[in-house]
């Protein structure tokens, strides 16, 4: 009988000690914020276009982390990002959902400066402050900062903003992958047998 009590006492003591240790560790090594949201956010292209239905990339990342949004709602990220998200979250890959848009090559907005009336509406719409100008002064887009989100197009009352595809330059040019290898034909065994 005593043995059983000892055993229970020892196990209980062990439980208390280990529990205290775990409790300490959980406060001592507490992770601030949600690391998963950060990881998802770092994959997203930061276009801030809202095509996914969320007001920016981070809110979409939060929704994905909470399982409230699918991983295929980001057209600027395209197929490559869906693969990356699927790998990160251990989910099945699915093609880009068409209701959110289609994948396009990288574009930047361009303001036709002779048409611009200086209404500042596009400046207010730009999520990354890439448009400079003042009231009744011509506006212009800082192409290096433009994410190509197209949010400045609808507010423009004179339709002077167009999207232009960014071409390859010497700075962005990439070496192509060398051609695929030749497949060595497998000869039927009979030829050898006949030769022999």
């Amino acid at each position: 009988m005593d043995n059983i009590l000892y055993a229970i006492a020892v196990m209980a003591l062990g439980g208390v000690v280990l529990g205290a240790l775990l409790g300490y560790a959980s406060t001592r090594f507490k992770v601030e914020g949600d690391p998963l949201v950060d990881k998802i956010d770092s994959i997203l292209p930061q276009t801030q276009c809202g095509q996914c239905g969320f007001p920016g990339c981070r809110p979409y990342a939060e929704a994905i982390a909470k399982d409230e949004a699918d991983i295929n709602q980001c057209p600027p990220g395209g197929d490559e990002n869906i693969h990356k998200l699927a790998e990160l979250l251990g989910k099945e890959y699915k093609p880009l959902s068409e209701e959110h848009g289609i994948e396009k090559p990288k574009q930047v907005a361009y303001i036709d400066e002779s048409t611009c009336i200086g209404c500042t509406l596009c400046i207010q719409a730009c999520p990354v402050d890439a448009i400079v100008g003042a009231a009744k002064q011509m506006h212009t887009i800082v192409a290096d900062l433009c994410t190509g989100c197209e949010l400045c197009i609808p507010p423009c009352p004179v339709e002077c903003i167009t999207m232009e595809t960014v071409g390859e330059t010497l700075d962005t040019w990439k070496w192509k992958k060398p051609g695929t290898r030749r497949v060595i034909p497998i000869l039927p065994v009979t030829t050898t047998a006949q030769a022999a």
Partner: protein
Amino acid sequence: MKLFSFKGGVKPDPNKTQSTALPISQAPLVARYVVPLHQSVGGTPRPIVQVGDHVLKGQRIGDADGWVSAAVHAPTSGTVVEIGPHIIPHPSGLPTDCVIIEADGNDTWIERVPFALESAQPESVREYLRDMGIVGMGGAVFPSHVKLSVPKGKAIEQLIINGAECEPFITCDDRLMREQADEVIQGSALFGRLVNAARVLIGVEDNKPEAIAALKAAQLTLGAPVEVVTVPTIYPTGGAKELIRVLTGKEVPGSKRSTDFGVQVFNVATVQTAWRAITLGEPLISRVVTISGAVGESRNWQVPIGMTIADLVTLAQPKPDADGVIMGGPMMGFRVTTNDAPVIKATNSLIVTAPGLFPPKPQELPCIRCGSCATACPQELQPFELYWWSRASKFEQLEKYKLFDCIECGCCDYVCPSHIPLVNYFRFAKSEIQAEQREKHTADAARDRFEFREARAEREKQEKAERLAKANAARKAAEAAAAAETPATENLAEAAPDLSSHPHQASTPIAVDNHPVLDASAKQAAIAAAVERARIKREQHGAKSGSDAS
């Protein structure tokens, strides 16, 4: 002097004797020069001339953009006819902004002023070299003035002047050392002074005995504090890291700079050009170019930067079966996409190809894991591992195998029995990784700007709310203060008549004892007064219309 050696390397057929027999010849004037603005590593120079401007030989036409950048100059006198995109020698075949000059045939120099070196600060020497367009002429075109600034707390133990010229077919440095030995020696001594080097070593491969003899003779006559060192001929001794290894035994990892180990390397042509810039005031407007291969006359030419490849190839009388041009050597060079592209500061050699001279590379076969590439790699990498990961596009693995330590010398390609274009795989992987880093960088910047904008909007909202609250409080306080003063100056009875006409002021007597009930009654009184006024108005109006009707 004790020499060291590096692991691996190959011994391709040098093919140098064809072009070393004849001395360097000045290329004749042509009608049109295409001078690219972006010719060095770093920022793209801004054009400082306009279409229609007349320029003189040696006049600056592009100003360095930032510290890591170098100016460009007009190669001859003439008129600027165009500033716009033109194809340059680059594996992509993409155009970049060039200044196109139509020569006037006089080749008139701008006034050349030697630089007062003795009275100059080190900083102004570097600025001068930047404005003279001095860049590394071994092919890397890194701005030389940047390499001349030694990091704080570091001293240069050995300054290495690279005259190894290990790549087959290229002999421009060889001929330069033979013909301009004194300028090379003086340039080396000058750079030694500029970086305060303890020793200056000129490394030359032992397959250039004439160049070594000329340099040694010039060194003896000038008594300059430089040493001419003969190094064994093995490709790629001319690689900066390999030459450092051979001459000093120091091994520089890809993540560090050679200055961290007390070494700096310059090409012989670079020090010679810099010396001319300082003592004669001549900017970098021409360079020695070897032209060889399927041509009638293989030799070296002093070519103005901007002369088209087509013009230069014509001078060399190409053979009828010539089918293309390689810029650089057969190991590291690339095929130029069009002969309209100009000679640039990086063009050390042009090889005219023909099917007999450079047969097409046999079909790529599977890797048989023989390990020859690893034995040949002078950087002690494992090219086969790099190849597998590059082919599978598993770029994160390539960091582990030190892809960026690869100098793309092509030794692995040369020995591969399966004819795998290994270097092309590494170039592909490198550019993919760099593009990914660029994208990540822009995405991070966009995120920062977005978050900043959000924070600013939030702050503005708060400030607006605060301003509103403050204005409200101020108004209340003012009212209270006014109310406190009123009874002392004004009679309540006198204020009373105002009640009807000025409802706002009417609240004053009520606020005296701060009683809400009174406030309400005053309001009611004001409303009543207004209603009364309206009634009187209506009655008057009614009477008037009534009289009109009658």
